[in-house]
């Protein structure tokens, strides 16, 4: 395993790919992998790319890769697609929309969400960390198609780009909570289509109503025709530079790290409980007693919480 880490740090793509699989599959080696990388976390800027299905995220990511490569910067990409809730399988098609680059400066990895809600996979962050340690300048993280409420990308990215396209709803949609609150900048993609101008105008109007923060920039793009991508990248770079200059980035990353740690530990405990036969037995027993009108649901809940406090795992882990 140490050998894989060293090979990866020396630029071996096969080793990076293997490490990513180990992380994604929750190999028992994972803690040692990240321990070995502690002092060499990387220096990439992480750009999250999110938006509804069909907005053109993958195509736009492909154009951003080209533009960043043209500037001589290296790029790692994580592209997340949904897993089927029925079979657990997934069709990962994001690469299809990206340019076929035989380029050592680009590393694209497809991930299935594997049942994790929120637009990312459970171990997307670990894979991003590996890409970072591999020495990329930029990491682009493309979420599954998202809508109202998938905000996990907030925990991932230094900068979040929301990609929209015309015909996805009126201003009321824009006023709803969700995507419109997480974006540091917005791309109105498919700008050649009818409704693109009015979508941009409606977004800008909706942003002006918000008093708590400055309106995020909105740029028109046509990823397919490669228009507006340079201008979009200028805005991304401007946001990156501003955050790096005012020292926000470090504080932002630390806050994100704390959220991530909390979430990871919560998930770990949820997994342990799900795999604990005593706990499942208690749950089933209490559910039966609620059904039989013996106790009420809140009493059952109190019993579970009491039991949780006594669980050995909760104190020893």
């Amino acid at each position, binding site marked *: 395993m140490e050998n894989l880490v060293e090979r990866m740090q020396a630029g071996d793509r096969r080793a990076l790919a293997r490490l*990513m699989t180990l992380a994604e599959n*929750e190999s028992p080696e994972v803690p040692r992998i990240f321990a070995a990388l502690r002092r060499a976390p990387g220096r990439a800027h992480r750009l999250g790319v999110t938006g509804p299905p069909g907005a053109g995220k993958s195509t736009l990511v492909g154009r951003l890769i080209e533009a960043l490569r043209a500037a001589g910067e290296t790029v790692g990409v994580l592209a997340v697609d949904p897993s089927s809730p029925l*079979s657990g*399988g997934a*069709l*990962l*098609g994001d*690469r299809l929309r990206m340019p076929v680059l035989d380029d050592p400066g680009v590393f694209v990895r497809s991930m299935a969400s*594997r049942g994790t809600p929120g637009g990312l996979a459970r171990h997307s962050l670990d894979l991003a960390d590996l890409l970072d340690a591999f020495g990329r300048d930029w990491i682009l993280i493309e979420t599954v198609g998202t809508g109202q409420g998938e905000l996990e990308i907030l925990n991932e990215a230094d900068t979040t780009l929301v990609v929209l396209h015309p015909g996805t709803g009126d201003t009321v949609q824009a006023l709803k909570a969700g995507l419109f609150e997480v974006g540091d900048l917005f791309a109105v993609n498919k700008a050649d289509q009818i409704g693109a101008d009015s979508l941009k105008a409606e977004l800008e109007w909706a942003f002006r109503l918000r008093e708590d923060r400055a309106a995020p920039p909105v740029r028109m793009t046509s990823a397919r025709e490669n228009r507006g991508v340079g201008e979009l990248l200028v805005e991304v770079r401007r946001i990156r530079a501003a955050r790096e200059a005012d020292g926000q980035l470090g504080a932002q990353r630390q806050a994100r790290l704390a959220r991530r740690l909390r979430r990871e530990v919560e998930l770990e405990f949820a997994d342990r409980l799900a795999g604990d036969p005593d706990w499942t037995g208690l749950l089933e027993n209490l559910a039966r007693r609620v059904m039989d009108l013996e106790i009420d649901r809140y009493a059952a809940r109190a019993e579970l919480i009491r039991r949780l406090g006594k669980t050995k795992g909760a104190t020893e882990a």
Partner: protein
Amino acid sequence: MKAPIRVLIAKVGLDGHDRGAKVVASALRDAGMEVIYTGLHQSAEQVAATARDEDVDVVGVSSLSGAHMTVLPRVLAALRAAGREDVVLVAGGIIPTDEAQALLEAGVARVFRPGSSTRDIAAFLQEEVARRRGAGAA
């Protein structure tokens, strides 16, 4: 350790018929595999590079243009060059039996000819990947 089978389905060269590839990709997804589909007109080197970066267990090459005797040996060589000679390489499409035999001898794990059921393809891949993983080929 959870380890879904990862598969790359590829079309190599000028062959422009991808319906079969899409049918197989969907069937393997329904069998619980993670299937990466990269579209038409890939080179053997691109297929091998994708197989390496995506760390797939299986590469499936669909050939309906008659170029399989050129394409598949190239893919095999490119996989070797990319350090992925451990991949299960399977071929599908219009491939005569005598040529299928030659491909098997060259290192293709299995050739699925017209009429193959997607269920058989999934079953073969599950068995073959389990066997190779068990052999410690990781």
